[in-house]
């Protein structure tokens, strides 16, 4: 076994309690990051699916004939950011209403004429889904002759967009704070180990040890602390997935819509390793002879 590795493992065992505490704290930190990343990931996923569900409905006046409606559709289709434009005639609107009423269809009995207007449904491309751009588009729609009213889920779109932006910002800040926290924990642990072995380090320097020789055991210790913290957090996530998440998704439909991004959790040990090594290097700074 290489000498540096042997010394690092001896020290890890000798200072096992402080090291274990650091590993657990790192695991907690990585779990916080995991939670934030998963939330932002799911919100983003939902926001990406929004164009499939979201559309603007422009209601046409009674005097607009099919030819005029077709001209409006052609003009709208040529605009940028528009994915699909669909014409819904008065009859189709009534059929859709009947279908949606199902057992309550009797409410439509007694109607002598179809009260529903013809309409145009407009769906947007992903990149044109911002609240501002949709609002501007809707305002321009209202100015088109023949369109009497325009409806869309303005508040819904705004809420989703605000939630996404807020969660991304909070997630980024929390992740940065937690990452700094983890680096600081590794830094503090290695710094303590370094001070406890200060005499040894001084002797090594006088015997002709290079900086790399002195640093290597401490870097290994930081790396082991980081990687074990990462493995612990990954195990907690995997345990949660199999014992809680899968059970819940079998019983609660809402849980089924949540995506569990395994590809984001598997690198947790590597993230721990990287943060551990970074903390170790900062802790030792520039070794002076």
């Amino acid at each position, binding site marked *: 076994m290489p000498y540096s590795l042997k010394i690092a493992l001896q020290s890890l065992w000798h200072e096992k309690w402080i090291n274990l505490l650091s590993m657990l704290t790192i695991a907690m930190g990585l779990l916080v990051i995991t939670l934030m990343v998963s939330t932002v990931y799911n919100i983003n996923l939902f926001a990406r699916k929004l164009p499939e569900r979201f559309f603007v409905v422009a209601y046409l006046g009674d005097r607009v004939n099919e030819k005029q409606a077709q001209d409006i559709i052609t003009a709208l289709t040529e605009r940028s950011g528009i994915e699909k434009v669909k014409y819904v005639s008065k009859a189709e609107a009534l059929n859709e209403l009947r279908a949606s009423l199902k057992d309550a269809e009797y409410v439509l009995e007694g109607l002598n004429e179809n009260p529903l207007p013809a309409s145009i449904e407009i769906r947007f491309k992903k990149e044109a889904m911002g609240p501002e751009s949709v609002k501007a588009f809707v305002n321009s729609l209202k100015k088109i002759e023949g369109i009497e009213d325009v409806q869309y889920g303005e508040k819904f779109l705004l809420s989703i967009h605000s939630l996404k932006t807020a969660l991304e910002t909070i997630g980024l800040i929390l992740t940065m704070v937690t990452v700094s926290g983890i680096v600081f924990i590794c830094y503090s642990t290695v710094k303590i180990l370094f001070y406890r072995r200060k005499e040894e380090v001084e002797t090594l320097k006088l015997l002709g040890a290079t*900086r790399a020789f002195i640093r290597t055991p401490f870097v290994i210790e930081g790396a082991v602390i980081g990687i074990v913290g990462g493995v612990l957090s990954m195990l907690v996530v995997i345990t949660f997935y199999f014992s809680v998440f899968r059970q819940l998704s079998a019983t609660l439909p809402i849980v089924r819509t949540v995506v569990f991004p395994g590809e984001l959790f598997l690198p947790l040990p590597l993230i721990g390793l990287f943060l551990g090594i970074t903390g170790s290097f900062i802790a030792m700074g520039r070794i002076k*002879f």
Partner: protein
Amino acid sequence: MIEFQDVSKFYDTVTALRNIDLSIGKGEMLFLTGPSGAGKSTLLKLIYAAEMPDSGRISVATWDTARLNGSTIPKLRRTIGIVFQDFRLLLNRNVFDNIALTLRVRRISEREVKAQVLDALRMVNLRHKVDSLPSALSGGEQQRVVIARAIVGDPTILLADEPTGNLDPDTAAGIMRIFRDINAKGTTILIATHNPTLFKDTGLRILRLDNASLVREEKG
């Protein structure tokens, strides 16, 4: 091998060494003596670059110590074996590992480390203590471990700061014999001591320090 040119060293307002001129030839063995606080340890520290002079120039082997940096200081120190006055033994490592440190910092193979450490232990008569921790050794035994750590790996220069301070006269004489044997192989040896019996009738050069200055040179 070692040259001091008008070297001075100060600690705040205290003068540790003043205008030292000194030349030690390759393969020479000599003594540095003087009362406590005369500057003996400081002079040794200047040689292995644990301290830097405030003025003057020091050259050791092929190095000008003023030009040493983080990558060349270890190279210089690997050519020097040091017997520290305060031992500097690692209390949580056994005798073998303490001596082996000198070789391990040079990335020597473990097989070679084992052979050389056991040779060094035989020289200081401590082969039977190979697995002992320093705390289980007497002061004299600890000092011999430090000497073994200094001589292992055949250094070009050997610096010894009060190497027989804790030893009885017979063991001290044995250590001096070891030093002479090493010197016979071409190692330059500088021994700092205030024990005159060590250099009496040796015929070797003695440098006498007093009040931070080199006051006299004589023969033992």
